């Protein structure tokens, strides 16, 4: 890389190992001041880990961090903040029950002579930062009353208020509207002019190309490419991200999908804060077909699944299974009609972590094993053993607590639970998130097998690679709307990316048109 004199922070041969997995492998990364240093990679490539190391949240297992040429080690994020490193986290780290000003100055409260918090001064200073973001947020508002995008802006204001020399932004635009993104970019330009080094992480390629000065690509914990932004194009980035070694996606077996098994008509879900989280979405699915739903975070994929499962009483629209309208509005009876959901958040929605593997597996299908009101232990055990074998769940004893399993095996338990209900239509929300390569391959193989057995599968993902490799057809969502449906033959990555950005403001680069 060029411009060594501008380098403010340098990572040398940094590795980070968690119990069992290597998140970052011998990474060398330079951050230049007065520039936007872009970092891209697929989910789980190690971007967030790398940033957490810089921000002092995590300590590297191996390697050195050089700040202004001298070696440093941060034992906490407070250390990093005092050295001038600020971070906007991907998951919002705000206190909903406190005001905007209190959040911005959390742990750095402005106090008067008597050590009482000077609320007026805090709000005045907070207002200055907020004004730069032109968000119309008053400093005395409660954070929980703000839209998610506004909360993200508060998070950004908080980071800016640190007067950091290095500012890390992890997916700062994931919940912002097009107008808000423009304002953020203006703020970034100001900061850049002031000599601040910005590390910018995002999935949105068109955004990166527009705003970045340098780009670094991560794949599987390794840095696979570094370049000046002006020298590269989308194709280059995608190639570096995916690499030549294809992942272990189970191959399509060429079976032909059957009759329509599921149809959703005009599904709408109003947002609490106004607008529609799911905006008049209609789609249909045939038996034995895998329909991938691609979209960025907040595109409304999970919300669509929630509506289909009947988790929102106030959603509208109709769903049909095998041509018959589903009148039942609650989850319990929709499961009986043949719908099953594998939720995105395994811990919060997929598993009852203190129950055993066996109890979790049969939780949704207990009625199958019941005579009168008695659970037939033998029948239940047999179903559990069979599922454990079929899905290759690695567990010594199914009476073990499910929380003792690895992420991949936990995910298989969630899938097993859904399959035991005997579904006709399976909804899978990010089924490969946060699990290791081997388990991913198993999950994909299972999806193929199920589709061969005639199940209809809707699966949502923000992983381009996955959606391209596994789907028979691809639907793209953006901002709650269905912005495109592609047959596998006609789908290109560029077309998907373009469709997923619709409604998020102008797509600046002509090459991204379909």
């Amino acid at each position, binding site marked *: 890389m060029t411009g060594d004199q501008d380098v403010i922070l340098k990572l040398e041969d940094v590795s980070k190992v968690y119990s069992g997995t290597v998140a970052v492998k011998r990474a060398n990364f330079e951050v230049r001041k007065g520039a936007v240093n872009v970092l891209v990679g697929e989910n789980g490539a190690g971007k967030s880990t790398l940033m957490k190391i810089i921000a002092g949240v995590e300590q590297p297992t191996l390697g050195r961090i050089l700040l202004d040429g001298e070696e440093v080690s941060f034992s906490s994020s407070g250390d990093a903040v005092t050295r001038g490193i600020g971070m906007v986290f991907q998951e919002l780290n705000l206190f909903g029950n406190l005001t905007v000003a209190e959040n911005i100055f959390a742990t750095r409260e402005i106090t008067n002579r008597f050590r009482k918090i000077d609320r007026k001064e805090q709000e005045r200073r907070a207002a200055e930062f907020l004004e730069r973001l032109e968000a119309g947020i008053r400093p005395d508002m409660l954070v929980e009353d703000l839209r998610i995008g506004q909360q993200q802006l508060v998070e950004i204001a908080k980071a800016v208020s640190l007067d950091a020399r290095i500012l890390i932004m992890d997916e700062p635009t994931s919940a912002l509207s097009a107008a808000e993104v423009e304002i953020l970019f203006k703020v970034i330009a100001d900061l850049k002019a002031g000599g601040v080094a910005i590390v910018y992480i995002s999935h949105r390629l068109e955004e990166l190309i527009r705003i970045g000065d340098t780009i670094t690509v991560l794949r599987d914990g390794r840095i696979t490419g570094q370049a000046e932004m002006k020298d590269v194009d989308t194709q280059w980035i995608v190639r570096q991200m995916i690499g030549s070694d294809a992942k272990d996606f189970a191959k399509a077996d060429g079976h032909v999908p059957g009759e329509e098994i599921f149809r959703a008509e005009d599904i709408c879900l109003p947002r609490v804060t106004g607008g529609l989280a799911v905006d008049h979405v209609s789609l249909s699915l045939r038996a034995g077909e895998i329909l991938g739903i691609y979209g960025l975070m907040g595109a409304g994929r999970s919300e669509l699944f929630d509506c289909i499962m009947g988790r929102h009483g106030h959603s509208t629209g109709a769903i049909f299974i095998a041509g018959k309208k589903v009148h039942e509005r609650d989850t319990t009876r929709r499961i009986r009609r043949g719908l099953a959901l594998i939720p995105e958040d395994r811990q919060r929605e997929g598993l009852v972590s*203190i129950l055993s593997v066996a109890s979790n597996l049969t939780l949704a299908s207990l009625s199958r094993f019941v005579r009168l009101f008695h659970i037939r232990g033998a029948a239940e055990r047999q179903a559990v053993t069979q599922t454990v074998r079929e899905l290759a769940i690695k567990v010594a004893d199914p009476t073990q607590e499910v929380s003792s399993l690895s992420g991949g095996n936990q995910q298989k338990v969630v899938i097993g639970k859904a399959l035991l209900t005997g579904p006709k239509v399976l909804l899978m929300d990010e089924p490969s998130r946060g699990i290791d390569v081997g388990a991913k391959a198993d999950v994909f193989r299972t999806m193929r097998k199920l589709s061969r057995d005639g199940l209809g599968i809707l699966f949502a993902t923000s992983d381009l690679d996955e959606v391209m490799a596994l789907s028979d057809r691809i639907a793209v969502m953006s901002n709650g709307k269905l912005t495109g449906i592609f047959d596998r033959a006609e789908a290109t990555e560029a077309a998907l990316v373009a469709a997923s950005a619709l409604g998020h403001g102008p797509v600046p680069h002509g090459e991204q048109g379909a």
Partner: protein
Amino acid sequence: MTDIPAKAVVNSISSGSVLLTLMKARTFIALIAVLLFFSIAAPNFLSAANLILMSKHVALNAFLAMGMTFVIITGGIDLSVGSIVGLCGMVAGYLVLNGVDLQVGYTIYFNVFEIALITLAVGILIGAVNGLLITRLNVAPFIATLGVLYVARGLALLSSDGRTFPNLIGKPELGTTGFGFLGAGRLLGLPVSIWILVVVALGAAYLARYTPLGRHVFAVGGNERAARISGVRVNMVKMFVYMFSGFCAAIVGLIISSELMASHPATGESFELNAIAAAVLGGTSMSGGRGTIGGTIVGAFVIGILSDGLVMMGVSSFWQMVIKGLVIIVAVVVDQAQRRLQSRVTLMQMAKAG
């Protein structure tokens, strides 16, 4: 790597397992300890008459604690049980003495069996009110049942203007005699109330282990969102646990009135706290998802025997309270230590398995 650290790991695992087993059996060990201690320290403690008397005392708390266990496993709490005991006692007493005046010159008197059924229905109904407040109106369980605690107690006092319904002997010509059977009667040498406890406890333990409803109770307490997505009817499960708790409280109300052959509106005050204590002592986790009926019964026996034994030794009731409090605190501290040890042993086993 040499052999030595590997062996050390194996050793610490097995010693951890022994300690873990001891900790898991802690309530039972505590029960044996109090039994041994009082049989030495208190004369007549082990006499049959005393043991039966103590069991009758324990049974009352055990009923409430069983209902409370289900409620706590779902992650809730039921503060209203003491008041339901009082109100149900008053309902039974009123029906024995006064019957129901139809306002047209006739009064219906029920026989004792019908009175018991009506009283149980009242208990279940109040439990249903708790459940509706919590599921339909989204009131926090603590607040909802606190409110019902006051309402039910107030109604109990209003029913007699604060007076006691005395002499519930009934009149043979009205067919209302025999109310004393529940509290004073015996079957095969054991008090009727003990038999009822055995039946209800077996039923509750069966429900918890072998029925979908029981499984759902644990699932709701362990992770309500996951349970809902798995198709568990969370609201129905919650309704059930509060209604069951009300049912248990009604049984206690009947037994107490029957024992005393009188209904007093202040009966059952602070019973809810003893019930919570027994459940917690028996290993029920206040954060939900964990607990057993067997553990709760043992917990109720530990508390009951402790207080009766201390009375027999002539320890002042003030000290009794201090001791009871300490026992509960120690139980929870040991519970937490067990959780930590358990997760460490599991991690070590996983590491060993690779």
